[in-house]
């Protein structure tokens, strides 16, 4: 299990699910919609946020990663981990503790020999105002207090803010997960006496969604024990209060993904295919094809070979392919020695940066210079259409976005395969030009020309007159454009 990463991606994160203390200045408390709490009420559950830039320059350079982080990004630190000085208006924290809050900026774990005190101005502790203005700057001038003193936590945000009581404003910033799986997966080093028992196995806890999202790229989500403790039902808090507040508690990913929307893990759009769709036969192609048939490889697995007829009619391309004289490795089940050197007709899906196509401009009734993204955007604006997505027949996204209840990431790898299987099953490839599927009230149509697949979400009615034809023409023209690029 890696080090916890409690950093957040932007300043807005700091506003989520926070509570203000009782000693908050009157002007602020009047706009704070959440119940108040004090550090004494939730020991170990009190955090402040601070931009990494507030202390970055004070860190030993040797311990930092070469890549400079976004200095405006907020990180969370427990109040009890710092000592603040009201006279100097400074806060001091041990480097080893600080590194737990933002491990990603350090090149390696901080060892005891590296440890040192890091000091930064108290005025840097803050949360940014949220869009609705609930949480203005909290580190007002002259408000510094000693962390352990009476009211010294007034500038802190408390983790208890993620409690289900947090209110409507916090709801969109939270993700609620079942508590039971988290308790069942506590790290072995955390021993609880008495073992926690849930009155209701369906009990949920609310966690800051950005804290969760920011860790998804690491394949795990950890929260500090103090945050878990603050979010727990009251009857469990005493049991968890004994845990080291900075201990990392894993939240099972499957629980998170039960609630998380698919846009939390969107793939970047500025990608390039790292492979060519022009297939050349290798000594293993025959086995791969055989296995795909024998084992009925699932759609979307990136391995649906084109049909035999498509193979045989394909022009041979590539010098290596041309030199394949023999596919030598045999198979226990089939003889592959006679396999013909026939690469497939699938070609690179590459488009010019800018299209020089009067036909496409005419189709979309625009004089704008078009590129792939703009073209697909224009297509999605055709009457009756809601959104559209262009993929390859292997499900690789080329442009556009499918919005609505049907998850693009789920449907886009499946539909081209489904279409191809339908074509193959019908045995009349040319007669099948498009397919419309109905998901409740959300129809989706697929148009496939060669290796391009246009997936369109549209109104729950037939296409408006001319739209279907226009879609076909656009895909055909895109196919022409990318073939033209290949010729050059």
């Amino acid at each position, binding site marked *: 299990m890696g080090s916890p990463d409690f950093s957040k991606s932007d300043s807005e994160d700091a506003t989520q699910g926070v509570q203000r203390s009782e000693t908050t200045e009157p002007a602020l408390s009047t706009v704070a919609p959440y119940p108040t709490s004090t550090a004494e009420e939730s020991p170990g559950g009190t955090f402040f946020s601070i931009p990494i830039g507030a202390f970055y320059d004070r860190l030993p350079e040797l311990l930092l990663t070469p890549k400079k982080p976004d200095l405006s990004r907020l990180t969370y630190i427990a109040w009890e981990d710092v000592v603040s000085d009201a006279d100097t208006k400074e806060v001091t924290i041990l480097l080893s503790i600080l590194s737990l809050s933002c491990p990603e900026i350090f090149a390696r774990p901080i060892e005891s020999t590296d440890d040192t005190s890091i000091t930064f101005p108290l005025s840097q502790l803050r949360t940014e105002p949220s869009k609705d203005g609930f949480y203005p700057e909290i580190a007002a001038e002259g408000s510094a207090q000693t962390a352990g003193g009476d009211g010294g936590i007034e500038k802190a945000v408390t983790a208890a803010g993620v409690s289900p009581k947090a209110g409507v404003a916090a709801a969109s910033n939270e993700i609620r997960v079942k508590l039971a799986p988290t308790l069942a997966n506590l790290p072995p080093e955390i021993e609880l006496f008495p073992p926690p028992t849930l009155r209701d196995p369906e009990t949920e806890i609310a966690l800051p969604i950005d804290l969760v999202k920011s860790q*998804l790229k690491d394949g795990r989500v950890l929260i500090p024990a103090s945050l878990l403790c603050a979010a727990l039902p009251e009857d469990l808090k005493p049991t968890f209060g004994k845990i080291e507040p900075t201990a990392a508690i894993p939240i099972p990913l*499957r629980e998170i993904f039960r609630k998380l929307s698919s846009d939390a893990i969107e793939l970047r759009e500025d990608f390039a295919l790292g492979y060519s769709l022009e297939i050349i036969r290798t*000594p293993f192609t025959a086995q791969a094809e055989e296995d795909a048939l024998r084992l009925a490889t699932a759609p979307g697995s990136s391995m649906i070979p084109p049909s035999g007829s498509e193979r045989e009619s394909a022009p041979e391309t590539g010098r290596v392919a041309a030199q394949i004289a023999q596919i030598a490795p045999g198979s226990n089940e089939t003889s592959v020695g006679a396999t013909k050197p026939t690469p497939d007709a699938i070609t690179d899906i590459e488009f010019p940066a800018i299209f020089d196509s009067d036909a496409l401009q005419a189709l979309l009734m625009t004089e704008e210079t078009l590129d792939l993204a703009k073209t697909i955007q224009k297509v999605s604006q055709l009457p009756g259409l809601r959104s559209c997505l262009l993929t390859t027949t292997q499900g690789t996204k080329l442009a556009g976005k499918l919005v609505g209840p049907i998850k693009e990431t789920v449907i886009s790898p499946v539909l081209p395969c489904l279409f191809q299987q339908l074509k193959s099953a019908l045995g009349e490839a040319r007669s099948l030009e498009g397919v419309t599927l109905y998901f409740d009230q959300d129809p989706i149509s697929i148009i496939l020309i060669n290796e391009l697949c246009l997936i369109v979400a549209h109104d729950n009615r037939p296409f408006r007159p001319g739209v279907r034809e226009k879609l076909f023409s656009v895909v055909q023209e895109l196919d022409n454009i990318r073939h033209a690029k290949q010729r050059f």
Partner: protein
Amino acid sequence: MPLINYANREIQFKIVYYGPALAGKTANLIYIHSRIGPAYRGDLVSLATSADRTLFFDLLPLHAEVLQGFKTKFQLFTVPGQVIYNSTRQLVLRNVDGVVFVADSQWDKMEENVVSFRNLEENLRAQGISLDEFPYVLAFNKRDLLDIAPTNYLEYLLNNRKRRVRRFESIAKTGVNVFAALDAVTQLLLRKFDTEHQGLRPSSAGR
């Protein structure tokens, strides 16, 4: 860079199956071994512990004739997945031509997948190789299990780079997409070889 022996008219490609512990790397090789005719393969050499954990590496040599007049050997290696064996992984990765990264699809293995993938990138970088230009494919293994992450999350973790590579949903123990992944990485190797060895013509290569 494949080894080319002009005297023996032989080209040798090295493909490494990389990934976290117990992801199914050895299972891939076992399946491949079972499906290739004995005339075209050597023995599967496996250095494993009693608990079937790969200790050093597995090696499966395959022979073919891809380029006319040249005997082509594919050496398939696995690495030990356990984090502590990094020096072994670095050793096995030396002179690697392509990688099949075998990820474990189970939910609780996501972090191990990420750690292993970053480790691959690091180890390649130590050899002066950038993953962004290196031939590799992804195999999301164990798709037959129940408690698995969706492929879009695996893709988000392992394939969300500027260069997006081919990925396969595989079940190594039954062979689903095992050859497909091997075929795909081999295509990348041959294409790269083709680009880098324009001057190598089989007819004149024997001189």
